[in-house]
């Protein structure tokens, strides 16, 4: 079984987010980049599935050379090889097009993504990719088991879950609970250095969106502290002052 995992390199979850003075660009200086947490869950699952089903795991990233440390991390966790599409990820459609182009030339039995990247927060790449490939997609997959060519998944829905069944190949977005996070061991880290990382050039894609600017949320006014003995007045106070309840 050949598994592809789409991985994104994102600012560390504790990173302070800053923009250039014209608010047009994210300032990467001083920021540590990590493997997007949901992609790490998806990758951990892929490594487990490959072990169970005698398969291989390829990771793919659309990004410039600065994403390579994150790709090496994915190899250390257990991917067999990696592909980097050499282009800055412009938007979700651009990324989905690059990956679909690669997959149409190099077929896989299963494609795993994260349910969401922590920088774009689109939850769009997996769904667009599935549409471009004419495949089903389970975007919020909390569990995944495979038996022969049939997969069973738990998918999050409003206020509950659905148990789904689908034939390979398909695209899934990994959500919390899909797998335990794997911590690379020393052997993984050593072997990651020599595992194959292929760089391919990007295909042309019509531009669909243009980033105009970034903005930061307004800071809240100072907190109003309420004594424990006055806790009983909280809801009245919110109703009077904020008019939201």
């Amino acid at each position, binding site marked *: 079984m050949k598994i592809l995992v789409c991985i994104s390199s994102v600012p560390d979850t504790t990173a302070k*987010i800053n923009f250039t003075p014209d608010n047009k660009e994210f300032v990467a200086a001083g920021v540590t980049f990590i493997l997007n947490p949901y992609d790490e869950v998806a990758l951990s699952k892929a490594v487990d599935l490959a072990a169970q089903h005698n398969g291989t795991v390829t990771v793919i990233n659309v990004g410039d050379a600065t994403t390579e440390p994150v790709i090496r991390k994915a190899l250390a966790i257990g991917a067999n090889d990696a592909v980097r599409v050499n282009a800055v990820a412009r938007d979700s459609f651009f990324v989905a097009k690059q990956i679909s182009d690669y997959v149409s030339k190099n077929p896989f039995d299963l494609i795993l993504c994260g349910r969401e990247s922590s920088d774009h927060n689109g939850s769009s790449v997996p769904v667009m990719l599935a*549409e471009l490939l004419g495949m089903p*997609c389970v975007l919020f997959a909390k569990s995944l088991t495979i038996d022969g060519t049939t997969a069973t998944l738990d998918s999050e*829905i*409003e*206020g509950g879950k659905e*148990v*789904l069944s689908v034939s390979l190949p398909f695209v899934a977005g990994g959500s919390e609970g899909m797998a335990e996070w794997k911590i690379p061991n020393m052997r993984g880290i050593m072997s990651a250095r020599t595992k194959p990382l292929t760089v391919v050039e990007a295909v042309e894609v019509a531009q669909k969106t243009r980033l105009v600017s970034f903005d930061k949320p307004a800071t809240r006014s100072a*907190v109003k502290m309420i004594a*424990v003995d006055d806790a009983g007045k909280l809801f009245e106070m919110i109703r009077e002052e904020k008019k939201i309840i």
Partner: protein
Amino acid sequence: MSVLVYIENADGKFRKSAFEIISYAAAIAQQINKPLVALSIGKVGADELAKAGQYGAAKVLNADADQLSKSNPQAYASVIAAAAKAENAEVVVMSASYNGKSVAPRVAVKLDASLGENVISLPDTSSSFIVKKGAYSGKAYAMVELLAPVKVLSMMPNSFKVVPNAVTAAVSSFQPAIDSKDFAVTVKETVRASGTISLPEAELVVSAGRGMKGPENWGMIEELANLLGAATACSKPVSDAGWRPHSEHVGQTGIAISPNLYLAVGISGAIQHLAGVSSSKVIVVVNKDPEAPFFKAADYGIVGDAFEVVPKLIEAAKAFKASQN
């Protein structure tokens, strides 16, 4: 040209989020001076469909084929794209619910459109078409211009007020050709916690963290939530430990929410937690540690032991409810 809004139903009924999304689409339609068309998929009764008119949809397409009675993102996307083509839609709007998120990117690809996902306000259409959406997990906003002639938008629940705007809804049946390839996924079972309020859509949320000590102490959190008509949520370590289901976990790696009120008990306010809740309109923090970082991100703070404060809040909620009736 028109604005098309896809309205989701839950077991044949429209929830508040459906009226919210019609109101939002109606405002866009007015802004760009185009008629509004609503699309319902699945089995919804005539009385319920007529309700779309109360928020400005004069035309309602009813795609009620048997095959569409169960939610299926692939098939629904095909139906929405077919409706968008039939109505020559310039803007297609839906909610960024779980279902909407699984559908909108497909619709965008099918229509060769630009996608604005998780938008939080009306687009700026003064000279081009610019949407505002969350980025960096709640730590920033991005203003994005949508360049293609057709735009598909998914809106973050709770970002727009329901605006009554009564017109008479003319409902017509919509039966596009349906491709069997769209039915590759089989739903074997649907498990829904009954009676609970959907967290992403909730207007009020009561959330608790490791400060609650153990799952056996969640009774009072649930009681407070019930009294307020709020959904319950939790921090990541709480769901990791299995004290609460993963579906309640909010934050950077959980659900991002923007309710009117977020009341957090025994949660320290780590940056990853704040990322998912900071766009809540009012935040109340209860924590026994006056130095807890969450107080810096709160509107109201109570320094005290949860086991003392929450019972007081329960009494307050009872009194508050009584005063409203």
